[in-house]
């Protein structure tokens, strides 16, 4: 059982994989962390000593924004756009794609599940 960056408890997996369970850490960042702290990529989390876990924790604390802080940061950025009244903000407000994608079809990630339109078929 290892707690890194707050609530995350990834266990029997290899260290670079386990680290990706933390919001804000993906594959490449996880590998970078392992290299920086000097942990072999094939090691598993439950094989780590306490000092190694501690050094990972410190590395993340010092160099990265993760979890709640990261979410807050992203939210703040979105909110700033919405308050400005610029085009990107308007798109965020409406929950539509922000970067110029088509909305005639697709865009389901932003729009959510398709809603049936009454009487559309003939």
């Amino acid at each position, binding site marked *: 059982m290892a707690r890194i960056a707050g609530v995350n408890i990834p266990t029997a997996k290899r260290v670079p994989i386990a680290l990706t369970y933390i919001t804000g850490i993906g594959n490449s960042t996880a590998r970078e962390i392992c290299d920086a702290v000097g942990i072999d990529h094939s090691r598993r989390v439950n094989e780590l000593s306490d000092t190694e876990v501690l050094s990972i924790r410190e590395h993340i604390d010092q160099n990265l924004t993760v979890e709640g802080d990261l979410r807050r940061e992203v939210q703040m950025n979105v909110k700033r756009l919405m308050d*400005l009244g*610029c*085009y*990107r903000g*308007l798109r965020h407000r409406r929950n539509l794609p922000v970067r110029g994608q088509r909305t005639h079809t697709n865009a389901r990630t932003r729009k959510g599940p398709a809603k049936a*339109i009454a009487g559309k078929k003939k």
Partner: protein
Amino acid sequence: MARSVWKGPFVDAYVLKKAEATRESGRNEVIKIWSRRSTILPQFVGLTFGVYNGQKHIPVNVSEDMIGQKFGEYSPTRTYYGHAADKKAKRK
């Protein structure tokens, strides 16, 4: 692709001239511009621009956060009020 840095930000010359003039006159009036493609520069902060959206000039109060974006971003060109309820659908 992003614009080359060595070119500097793009601003239509008449926008600069108009902004300068109102700044000197001290009066805070809406500066009508048609150039939606111009970048918002730091010296525009505090001024009010009327940015043309193809129909009328939308007043835009330039604030610090807007620097580096284009005027057009603050003057939407499309109006969309949602789809009208379909008459045929009600008949069933």
